[in-house]
């Protein structure tokens, strides 16, 4: 190939190598500057971080280009794309397998670095230098990993396949276009909190200012993580074809653990900012949160665990990531051990105070994360010692997680309305007694009205969720002294908190209802058959055939009626993707706020009959609606003007 455009993939690789070189400089130069107090060296941190991001973006853009133009001489493209694949899926196929998702991972890391260099005007230069240098270290490790073990630009020359093997059909879906980048943004975003914590530790300035700088970044990463997890759950629900939305699968656990610790970190940072307490604990949480997101990457990418997410994978890569994880955790804990004893938290607080509630919150979140870690890694440990292949059932995770969540939900409300330093149980009790009565009464009513008899699980779930909502609203009512027009003046931070806490309650209601009142039936159905499930009738009207761009499918037309009235026409499909011959179930779902009707086709049986999976899932949407509330709350809190105040002051001085 002599034309320059035949070389495009090599430019991509070259850009990646440049990014590696730049990130090495980004580690070394700013740190040298800090060491020798040379401002001009430290000032290199920002341009170097930007340059790294630019090179990574070029690299990612070139890989995307290779996918869009079907350059099957690139082995990764040939393995994961196909000429018949619709263009949006060609783009999302970039992160459809290991090599590309790793490139996306490092690119997003570069983008966070770019964001820090753009939005850190109010930060002292040495802090910026340290933060970006630490982020550079993470970049070096992962770009090296990409180039060394998983180069997406590797060619399959000279025998170029004329057609690609196609993207795994499960991944040909809108959910996959958005889920991995969002989740990765969250994972990688925690590196910023991590870098801030280590930088502050190195510089010996673990103070309120550090906490204030770190908070919006942590919140941003947390928002992405929240949305990413919710998207993943939503995607699994409609795409895997059997209506489950959380499986306690190792890979899901891998995303939930950093989320729990990041949630703890958000609250701990609040205490550090407002009261100058919990400093070393906050640093430790930042280290844990990022380490857990690296662990998540390791679990997903090494294939050491049996998981619905497990793709055929390469154990050597696992070892490389494990080494990176070891260096990162070991190094940061060593730094912590050396520096943390010099950190003193000033200020005191009584047993009954907001600080205590926050401590309890942190304890519950960290214990929950630890329990999940234990359950996730236990099979690995057992296997490692040759004691057999085991798996930990979902029931164990539920037994651990549900009580902790209930306790957490109970303290969120009182915690938020308690006072810093010292408060009285009597005062808190007095403010919340009405809320307690209302939520208990309603919680009794809900299972009786909805299910007809008493269900204590539903009662408990609804009771704690309503308690959370009513106490939170009581707090709002008191703070605005009974005049709703005062709500805007309460501050974005407070409003964000209220929204996020109500989001938690919404998710709890959704989980309690859908876990207890879902109805499901697997039935053998031929055209003309009618099945009844709860209040709904499912009529298999006719069978049909659909031709898609890269698949053909058998489809079933269903008429769903309730009390003789038609609710909707649903068309579930059974697709066969041409390139791989892979069979996929496309569920058909009628969505509403209070229930989902879910139909998916099973296997073809004889005489035109099919195995059909029919489901009615009450309050399904609430599970994800809560996550939307939480992330909106996070966004409001981030927008609070106190995070920008220093900047405006400086501008005023200038």
């Amino acid at each position: 190939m002599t034309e320059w455009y035949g070389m495009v993939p090599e430019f991509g690789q070259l850009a990646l190598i440049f990014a590696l070189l730049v990130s090495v400089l980004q580690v070394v130069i700013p740190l040298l500057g800090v060491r020798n107090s040379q401002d001009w060296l430290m000032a290199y941190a920002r341009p170097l971080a930007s340059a790294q991001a630019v090179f990574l973006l070029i690299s990612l853009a070139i890989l995307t280009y290779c996918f869009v133009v079907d350059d099957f001489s690139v082995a990764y493209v040939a393995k994961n794309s196909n000429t018949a694949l619709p263009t949006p899926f060609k783009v999302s196929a970039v992160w459809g397998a290991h090599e590309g998702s790793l490139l996306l991972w490092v690119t997003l890391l570069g983008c966070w670095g770019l964001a820090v260099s753009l939005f850190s005007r109010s930060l002292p230069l040495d802090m910026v230098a340290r933060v970006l240098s630490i982020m550079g270290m993470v970049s070096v490790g992962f770009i090296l990993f990409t180039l060394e073990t998983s180069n997406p630009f590797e060619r399959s020359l000279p025998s170029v396949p004329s057609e690609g093997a196609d993207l795994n059909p499960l991944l040909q879906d809108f959910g996959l276009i958005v889920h991995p980048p969002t989740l990765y943004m969250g994972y990688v975003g925690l590196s910023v909190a991590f870098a801030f914590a280590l930088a502050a530790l190195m510089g010996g300035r673990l103070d309120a200012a550090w906490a204030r700088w770190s908070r919006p970044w942590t919140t941003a990463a947390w928002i992405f993580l929240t949305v990413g997890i919710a998207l993943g759950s939503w995607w699994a629900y409609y795409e895997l074809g059997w209506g489950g939305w959380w499986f306690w699968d190792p890979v899901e656990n891998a995303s939930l653990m950093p989320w729990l610790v990041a949630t703890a970190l958000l609250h701990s940072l609040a205490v550090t900012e407002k009261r100058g307490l919990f400093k070393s604990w906050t640093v430790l949480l930042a280290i844990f949160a990022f380490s857990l997101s690296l662990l998540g990457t390791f679990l997903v990418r090494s294939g050491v665990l049996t998981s619905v997410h497990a793709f055929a994978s390469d154990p050597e890569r696992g070892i490389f990531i494990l080494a990176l994880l070891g260096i990162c955790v070991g190094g940061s804990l060593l730094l912590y051990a050396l520096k943390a004893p010099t950190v003193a938290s000033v200020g005191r607080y009584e047993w009954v105070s907001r600080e205590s509630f926050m401590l309890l919150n942190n304890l519950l979140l960290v214990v929950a994360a630890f329990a999940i870690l234990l359950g996730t890694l236990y099979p690995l440990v057992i296997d490692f010692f040759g004691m057999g292949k085991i798996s930990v059932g979902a029931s164990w995770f539920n037994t651990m997680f549900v009580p902790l969540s209930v306790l957490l939900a109970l303290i969120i409300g009182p915690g938020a309305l308690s006072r810093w330093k010292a408060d009285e149980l009597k005062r808190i009790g007095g403010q919340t007694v009405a809320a307690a009565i209302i939520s208990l009464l309603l919680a009794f009513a809900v299972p009786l009205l909805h299910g007809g008899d008493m269900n204590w699980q539903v009662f408990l779930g609804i009771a704690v969720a309503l308690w959370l909502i009513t106490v939170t609203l009581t707090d709002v009512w008191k703070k605005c002294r009974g005049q709703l027009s005062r709500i805007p003046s309460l501050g974005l931070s407070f409003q964000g908190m209220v929204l996020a806490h109500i989001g938690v309650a919404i998710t709890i209601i959704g989980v309690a209802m859908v876990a207890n009142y879902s109805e499901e039936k697997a039935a053998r159905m031929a055209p003309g058959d009618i099945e009844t499930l709860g209040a709904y009738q499912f009529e298999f009207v006719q069978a049909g055939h659909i031709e898609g761009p890269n698949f053909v499918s058998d489809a079933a037309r269903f008429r769903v009626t309730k009390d003789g009235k038609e609710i909707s026409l649903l068309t579930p499909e059974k697709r066969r993707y041409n390139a791989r011959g892979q069979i996929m179930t496309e569920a058909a779902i009628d969505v509403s706020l209070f229930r989902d009707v879910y139909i998916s086709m099973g296997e073809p049986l004889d005489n035109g009959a099919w195995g059909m999976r029919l489901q009615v899932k009450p309050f399904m949407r609430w599970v994800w609606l809560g996550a939307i509330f939480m992330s909106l709350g996070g966004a409001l809190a981030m927008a609070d003007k106190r995070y920008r105040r220093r900047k405006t002051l400086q501008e005023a001085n200038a």
Partner: protein
Amino acid sequence: MHPKRKKRLILILFLVAGVGTAVGLMMYSLSQNINLFMTPTQMANGEVPVGRTVRAGGLVVAGSVERSDQGLGATFRVTDGAAEVTISYDGILPDLFREGQGIVALGQMSADGVFIASEVLAKHDENYMPPEVKDALEKAHTEGKQALESARY
């Protein structure tokens, strides 16, 4: 003792006791909640107690899948190359279920030697071989290795 130190000490003791109890309880309930993986050889040798929930897996034997005329029931045999065991499942089999494919099922052994599955696991990727199944095939030595080779893509 300085009141501040005393408070801190109480807090630490409280934490240690709490964490200790929690870990103990977790480990205990974990040991009660694990599902062992059993190979077809182990099952054929009667190593699986009747009524205990375990996971079983192997390659689906070609030509062994039988569906009932009524309802959704299906039976099939899985092998690790050395022994075979019959699995019965009343439900919708996953999309990637096919003859020659490595599968993992969750269920219980019945008294008549049939494994009654409550769940047959689906995987994302048709090239994916569950690690347990791979392990089982390798354990069953030569025949298993041949089966593994021929099952490879």
